[in-house]
């Protein structure tokens, strides 16, 4: 009975895999010691698109990338990359994917040229093709000047670019970018965003990227999946997700971060408020109708003598998508903060 169900599951994932760059279904990953990193994750990525897995640290993004890139095996479930099974056809997958992991894999003692050439040869490119591709990629990522220096002397941004160049040397069909901008300064991040956008516009390259920056997913992804504790919470285009939120977003800046204990309970009681979160002095609420909800909220705050500095009503952003689906708001350091569940 249960075997049949599993086989049925495989068949549907396999069906989805046809014509898709990536298809995953029912992915479970339990590490030694019982830590459950993935809990039935499934999604499909169309060829030539940028797909973002968005979620806080520990949501299962990196585990998903490890499984899809054949580094790790799922405890249960199925995944197909470029139509190949991650377990039975790992070798075929390895030939057609490029991987830029969080831990870069750039050899610091070697130069950019040497790193790229080793990578090219390992992927079976001939000596001449490897040389040509190396020159091409160094120019493409503006690393030519530094190409003869040991990679350990590079800045974070340069190293990340070399990383991506190494992932591209064999012209993969699918590129995995695991938190490509984590640890980069704002300038390098903006630069990296442009590079990633340019990549997807070229050829038929499919990009799966993970990030814990809402802004990054909003900016880059054609579609995104919100992950929480190893599960898919919601999936769609950034626009769809935002449009799916009826109503408005209310942001109130408070004059204090020390709030009375009963305030939360009372805000929860309000019919006009669907969800809310407080981070330091920022109160963020999701409401059906901003203009009528705002006075109600302000009245409650006033009742508790909480000073208010400013209030804004706006259309929802991905922050609000997160607030609605995961139930706790999202701060940009990648940690989640409390709120109603």
């Amino acid at each position, binding site marked *: 009975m249960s075997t049949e169900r599993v086989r049925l599951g495989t068949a549907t994932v396999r069906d989805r895999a046809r014509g898709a760059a990536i298809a995953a279904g029912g992915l479970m990953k339990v590490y030694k010691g019982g830590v459950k990193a993935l809990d039935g994750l499934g999604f499909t990525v169309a060829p030539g698109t940028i797909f973002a897995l968005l979620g806080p640290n520990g949501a299962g993004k990196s585990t998903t990338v490890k499984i899809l890139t054949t580094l*790790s095996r799922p405890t249960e479930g199925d995944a197909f990359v470029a139509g190949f099974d991650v377990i039975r056809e790992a*070798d075929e997958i390895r030939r057609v994917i490029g991987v830029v*992991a969080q831990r870069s894999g750039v050899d610091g003692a070697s130069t950019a040229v040497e790193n790229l050439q080793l990578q090219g040869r*390992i992927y*079976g490119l001939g000596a001449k093709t490897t040389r040509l591709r190396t020159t091409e990629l160094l120019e493409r990522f503006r690393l030519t000047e530094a190409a003869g220096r040991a990679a350990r002397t590079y800045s974070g941004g340069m190293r990340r670019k070399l990383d991506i160049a190494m992932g591209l040397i064999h012209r993969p069909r699918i590129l995995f970018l695991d938190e490509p901008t984590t640890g980069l300064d704002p300038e390098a991040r903006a630069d990296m965003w442009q590079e990633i956008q340019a990549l997807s516009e070229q050829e038929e390259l499919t990009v799966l990227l993970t990030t814990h920056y809402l802004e990054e997913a909003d900016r880059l992804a054609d579609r995104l999946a919100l992950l929480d504790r190893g599960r898919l919470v919601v999936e769609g285009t950034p626009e769809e997700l935002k449009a799916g939120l009826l109503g408005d977003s209310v942001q109130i800046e408070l004059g204090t971060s020390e709030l009375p204990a009963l305030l939360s309970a009372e805000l929860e009681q309000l019919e006009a408020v669907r969800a809310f979160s407080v981070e330091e002095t920022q109160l963020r609420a999701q409401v059906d109708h901003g203009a009528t909800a705002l006075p109600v909220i302000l009245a409650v705050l006033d009742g508790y003598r909480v000073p208010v500095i400013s209030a804004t009503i706006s259309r929802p952003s991905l922050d609000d998508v997160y607030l609605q689906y995961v139930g706790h708001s999202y701060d940009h350091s990648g940690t989640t903060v409390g709120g109603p569940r």
Partner: protein
Amino acid sequence: MTTALAHTWYVTQRYSRTAIRQPIWVLSALLQPIIWLVLFGALFKRIVEIPGFGGGSYIGFLTPAIVVMTAMFSAGLCGMTVLADLDTGVIDRMLVSPVRRGAILGGLLVEQAAVVFVQCGIILVLGLVLGARYSGGPLGALVLLVAATALGVGIAGLSNAVALTTRRRESVIGVVQLLLMPLTYLSSAFMKLELVPGWIRDIARVNPVNWAVSGGREALAGNPQWGHVFLNVGLTVAFAVVTTLLGTAAFGAYRRSV
């Protein structure tokens, strides 16, 4: 097969490059055995006068031992390289590529073997300068180098296994420090086995360091007993095969744990 060899060669090249680019490492790798040779050679010079030692020059007796020690200490920290590559993601990057799995550690072991071979060759020449004479000629020298290299690969395999199992630098350093010095002294490296206590002689019989020293030294002597040489060098090679398999198994366990 050719793919596997090619991949191993690419990986070997990379490690060789990394090693050569560390001038301090190259210097210490050569300086340390030179110091041993000069120091121990002077310190124990008159050991040959002990009745039963059989005379001859101590430097001639000592050189094969220093060659083997060099191999051992050079390869002992091999696991640190594996740990560094795990930390920086170099190994994971190789694992998501079509590179043959065996080439990843294989390339490192080949590089270790090459380094050990060259280092030991230099020590042999230095011994010659300091007055050692090798009656066994080039063939004897080659057999000694093979024995030393096999021991080096064996120790490297062990070091990799410890590194991949514990994934801690402290463990690799600890095991190396705990194991290598005693193994050296529980062998015929500095003293003829006929002159050591019985229990040391018993341990020496199952000590890979002793196999390498004893087999290599015999080959370097005039009119060697080839049976003794083959047995001891063969055992050393077997030791290298076993620890390489241990390292490979530990690598498999690492891959399953990701």
